[in-house]
């Protein structure tokens, strides 16, 4: 296998290397990609969409349709992980483990034993010893709000600076994942349940697709945000900018929710217990 692999790689690689000879020079301002389609974006985007961040303008408007499916890809991945891994038929465990939070002692309750009352001083755990690290927990608790605000900023400010729905959504999702890592999965799921992630995931994509469909209902092409001008009370160019913001929010919701969803399933192999 190794030798076959090596042969394929060498053959394929040298073919590509040969192709590179005929490439335009790197960074050549006269290369076709720099001359054909892109100048229009650079020169006209601000007049047509009022968005200075060209990447956002192209991403969410000129090629907004691609981006809608990009979000769908993420959503599909979430669904796929859910379908592949999630174990819903739960068998009753042999024994349950609880930790007494003030003391850190682990209680082991055999099948049929009496469960501790939900007093708040016990928490359910899944393995004999779950590290209980005050520093990590406190730090992550401290960071989380900042992280979330930063995420919202990245989503909202994508028009003017690097950023946008994907980046912000991932950061937002990372905040939850960090929480799940520093505490445990069970607690994280109590806060943001699986159902919420799944529904939010589809809702996010639905915001995107729905915006597009709304444009269609208003008589323009699908995702032609200019049609929203009447609804938003701005001129068509500005309406494009606003339309992009709406879909970016949708993307943000979808990406953050699905990231969390994927993490839940992947880290616990679909059992949603202790996690990593």
């Amino acid at each position: 296998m190794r030798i076959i692999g090596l042969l394929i790689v060498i053959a394929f690689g040298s073919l590509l290397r040969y192709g590179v000879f005929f490439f335009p020079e790197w960074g050549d301002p006269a290369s076709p990609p720099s001359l054909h389609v892109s100048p229009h974006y650079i020169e006209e985007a601000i007049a047509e969409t009022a968005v200075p961040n060209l990447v956002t303008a192209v991403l969410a408007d000129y090629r907004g349709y691609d981006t809608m499916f990009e979000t769908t890809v993420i959503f599909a991945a979430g669904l796929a992980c859910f379908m592949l891994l999630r174990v819903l038929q739960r068998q009753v465990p042999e024994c349950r483990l609880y930790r007494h939070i003030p003391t850190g002692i682990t209680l082991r309750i055999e099948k049929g034993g009496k469960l501790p009352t939900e007093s708040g001083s016990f928490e359910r755990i899944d393995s004999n010893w779950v590290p209980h690290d005050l520093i990590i927990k406190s730090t992550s608790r401290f960071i989380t709000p900042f992280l979330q605000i930063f995420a919202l900023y990245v989503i909202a400010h994508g028009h003017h600076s690097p950023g946008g729905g994907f980046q912000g959504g991932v950061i937002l999702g990372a905040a939850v994942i960090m929480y799940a890592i520093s505490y445990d999965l069970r607690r994280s799921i109590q806060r943001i349940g699986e159902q919420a992630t799944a529904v939010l995931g589809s809702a996010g994509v639905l915001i995107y697709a729905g915006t597009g469909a709304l444009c269609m209902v208003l008589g323009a092409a699908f995702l032609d945000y200019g049609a929203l001008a009447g609804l938003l009370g701005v001129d068509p160019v500005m309406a494009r900018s606003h339309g992009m913001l709406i879909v970016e929010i949708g993307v943000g919701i979808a990406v953050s929710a699905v990231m969390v969803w994927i993490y839940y399933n992947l880290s616990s192999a679909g059992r949603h217990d202790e996690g990593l």
Partner: protein
Amino acid sequence: MGVELFSDIASKYNYLGVVILMMIGLYAMIAKNNLVKKIIGMNIFQTAIILFYVSTAAKRGATIPIIRHGHNGHGHEVIHAAEYINPLPHVLMLTAIVVSVATLGVALALAVKVYHQYGTLEEDEIRGQLRNK
């Protein structure tokens, strides 16, 4: 000839890097025995392609594609295409990155499932188990 080759390499070294990276990924996918290593190889392969696209966006002497003074009074100043790098490949690669993340997620999910089924991620061991059945 030698000089030509050298100048060619000098002016396109990033493409060469891309090719090398791509081949590393491909080799890992073909030759590695461990499924997770294959997944890593797959990711390297995809990343190489992303780098290739981003390379095509570059323009000498241009800056990132965010219009300066864009927010105040749009469209008054003349914007020259040569001043900003090409935003399109970046957009495309944002999509490709997302796709590769999604693929990675699904691949890992499948690998987890395989691991639970066979208790190993080494391909030859799995094949051995299948043969013995």
